[in-house]
């Protein structure tokens, strides 16, 4: 192995305060090497370095350049690390200026060693930690030291995230042990009649402490180790089983298989529609009508984000509309960031439109036994109003990009690139989508007509359409099921639902519900009845809204849903309003940060891949905060106004 410290010597490093061009840099480096006795003919080496630069820039990106050459006039291999107080244009591939240069020169007969040192240096500078520290170093000599000596990371530094995680889980357990025994459900009244008073004593207290620790540990684990979320959720569930807190039968029941079946079927349906280009076709047709007027184009794309977010799913919605925005932006040379943010905001707001749009909607529908019609009555109008306000806000915030200009867009060109190959299939796709929406919309009536239990027709409708699609696609149907369903996510959902339901099983949610109502009661000056429900709804809406901005919204909703169920059971008036508070909190809160929802992550991923630019956290939060506060505000007012109408 080539050891860089043998070749990158701090005493050879140079601070180039006066270099303004590549020629200046090479001149000063070559003269310096001549003074140090490394080079015999500095002028020739300078020409060689300049000549090689003309054959392709050695700016490798990230503010670095690695000029290199072998030459007869070089006596020994040397690396000169240079720092530039004023960044220089080095024609780097990423277009960035250069702050640090490492010049590598070697005798012509040491080509193999020269390539080894060059490769080692490139490898070292490719490590983000070393590169950042070297670029920030206050002198060239310090930068050379950083580059040459591989960083030693102690066990604690290497595993700091994991250690932090275990420490946090222990703290959670400690806090749960302290807090849960002191929260006591009052004797008498509904809690006693429901048999909840057993939750005040052992062995339930220990079960509650363990369940809370495992659930919060899982939420924290998914936040810190997102890639391993299934493993973390599975391990949590395993511990619950081994500890005897839940039996196998209850665990399977809590996995909410109807919810999983519905989401699974919808994944197949939506992937199929996406593959045959149904969504894209419809959006392209609409774009044709706006004739290049930027603000109208944004509104059309936002409207489709809302509708697709509500009737298909948020990820498909953002893939279609942002995919088109990318093409529009490329063709019209329009800035992409306003499109990105506006479309994501619209998708998240739209995902509360119906029960189909977001997994939390599906979960709430099954947990609260709510129908599609309930969603049309309670969720759609608020979501639609919020979407209109968000659209106006986005146009106001980005007005300089969308007014006073016109895009030179050929809509036919967009249509040509829309990837539609089979018009007959497209027709079948559109008809299937309409049939699916009608069946889902009528599920409650079908259930009443046929005497089926709640949610049966909903799952059946999705399964029937899936069956038709798989049959229609013949041998491709198998691929659709294998690839179209995100099995990883589904498995996570199953484990998560079971973990969350355990909070209800052990009485944690009954205690939290009692605590929440007590808080709401004290905030409303000790009043009872619907005022308490209103305050509880507000607390739930804003809590789920703000936390959903930082943590995946499904764990939050899965943990809070049993509280809503419990409060309904203990007779809180108009308690069904709480389901809607939960839905809007979970959906609208996703706009707060870049990690707030899956749609955000998908769109930002595509944005970064295409532009090579990162969206800064603060850049998102600045606009996301306004949008989230306004949309949560709209939901608050709308829910409070309708509170007494809620069952």
């Amino acid at each position, binding site marked *: 192995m080539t050891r860089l410290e043998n070749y990158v010597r701090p005493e050879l490093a140079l601070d180039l305060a006066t270099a303004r061009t590549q020629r200046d840099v090479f001149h000063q480096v070559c003269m310096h090497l001549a003074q140090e006795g490394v080079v015999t003919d500095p002028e020739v080496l300078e020409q060689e370095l300049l000549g090689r630069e003309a054959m392709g820039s050695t700016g*490798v990106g990230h503010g670095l350049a690695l000029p290199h050459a072998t030459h007869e006039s070089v006596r020994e291999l040397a690396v000169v690390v240079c720092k530039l107080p004023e960044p220089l244009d080095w024609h780097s591939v990423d277009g960035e200026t250069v702050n640090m240069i490492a010049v590598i020169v070697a005798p012509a007969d040491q080509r193999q060693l020269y390539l080894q040192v060059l490769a080692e240096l*490139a490898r070292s500078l490719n490590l983000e930690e070393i590169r950042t520290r070297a670029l920030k170093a206050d002198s060239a000599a310090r930068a050379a030291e950083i580059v040459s000596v591989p960083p030693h990371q102690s066990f604690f530094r290497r595993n700091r995230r994991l250690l932090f995680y275990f420490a946090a889980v222990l703290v959670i357990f400690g806090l749960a042990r302290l807090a849960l025994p002191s929260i006591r459900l009052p004797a008498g009244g509904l809690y006693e009649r429901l048999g909840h008073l057993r939750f005040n004593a052992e062995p339930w207290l220990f079960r509650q402490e363990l369940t809370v620790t495992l659930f919060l540990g899982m939420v924290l684990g998914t936040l810190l180790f997102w890639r391993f979320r299934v493993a973390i959720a599975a391990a949590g569930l395993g511990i619950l089983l081994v500890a005897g807190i839940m039996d196998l039968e209850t665990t399977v029941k809590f996995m909410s298989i109807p919810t999983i079946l519905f989401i699974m079927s919808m994944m197949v349906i939506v992937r199929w529609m996406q593959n045959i280009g149904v969504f894209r076709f419809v959006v392209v047709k609409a774009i044709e009508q706006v004739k290049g007027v930027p603000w109208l184009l944004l509104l059309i794309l936002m409207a489709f984000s809302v509708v697709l977010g509500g009737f298909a799913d948020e990820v498909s919605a953002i893939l279609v509309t942002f995919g088109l925005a990318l093409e529009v932006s490329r063709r019209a040379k329009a800035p992409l960031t306003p499109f990105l943010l506006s479309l994501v905001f619209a998708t998240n707001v739209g995902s509360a439109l119906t029960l189909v749009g977001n997994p939390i909607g599906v979960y709430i529908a099954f947990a609260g036994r709510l129908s599609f019609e309930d969603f049309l009555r309670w969720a759609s109008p608020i979501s639609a109003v919020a979407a209109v306000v968000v659209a106006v806000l986005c146009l106001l915030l980005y007005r300089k990009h969308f007014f006073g200009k016109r895009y030179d867009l050929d809509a036919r060109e967009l249509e040509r690139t829309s*990837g539609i190959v089979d018009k007959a299939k497209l027709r079948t796709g559109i008809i299937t989508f309409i049939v699916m929406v009608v069946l889902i919309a009528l599920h409650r009536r079908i259930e009443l007509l046929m005497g089926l239990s709640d949610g049966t027709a909903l799952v059946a409708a999705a399964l029937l359409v899936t069956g038709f699609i798989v049959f229609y696609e013949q041998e491709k149907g198998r691929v659709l099921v294998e690839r179209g369903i995100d099995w990883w996510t589904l498995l996570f959902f199953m484990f998560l639902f079971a973990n969350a339901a355990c909070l209800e099983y052990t009485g944690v949610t009954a205690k939290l519900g009692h605590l929440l109502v007590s808080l709401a009661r004290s905030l409303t000056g000790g009043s009872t009845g619907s005022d308490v429900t209103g305050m509880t709804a507000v607390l739930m809406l804003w809590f789920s809204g703000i936390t959903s901005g930082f943590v995946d919204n499904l764990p939050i909703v899965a943990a809070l849903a049993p509280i809503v169920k419990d409060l309904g059971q203990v007779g809180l008036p108009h308690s069904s309003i709480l389901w809607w508070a939960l839905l809007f909190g979970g959906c609208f809160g996703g706009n707060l940060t870049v990690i707030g929802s899956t749609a955000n992550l998908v769109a930002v991923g*595509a944005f970064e891949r295409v532009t090579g630019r990162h969206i800064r956290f603060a850049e998102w939060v600045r606009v996301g905060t306004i949008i989230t506060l306004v949309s949560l505000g709209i939901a608050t007012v709308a829910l409070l106004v309708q509170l007494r109408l809620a069952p």
Partner: protein
Amino acid sequence: MFERILYFVSEKQEDKSFVMDLARKHQSTVFLSGIMAADRRQQMRSEGETRRKVLREEQERRCWHDIYHLEEEFKASGVKSSVIAQQGNIDTIQLLASSTRCDLIVLAASNLADHDYKLPEELLPNLPCPLVITHSG
């Protein structure tokens, strides 16, 4: 026609010759980068942590060595070339294709092991330019 070619360097001589001929013919600038083959990552997973780290570093070293070796060859034969300080997996292809504004991407089939399904489903629809996959025996 192909002013800027993005080439993910592979070990096969046939691939290198193909890119060099193409670059000469079109007077292109070649951007050289590296992809760590998935099968090697897979192989590393079965090793212990220290051994895995050593293997990874070794592979990175070899990859950078190949890249700079090729840059030398290209420049010596009059082909303009630049190295990009970004190694990664198949997911970085689109990022680099965009940042280099390339007209053609050349990728070796050997770099696609374990990721072949990603190519038609995730990568191809989002690429800004054509992609050539070389398959040398």
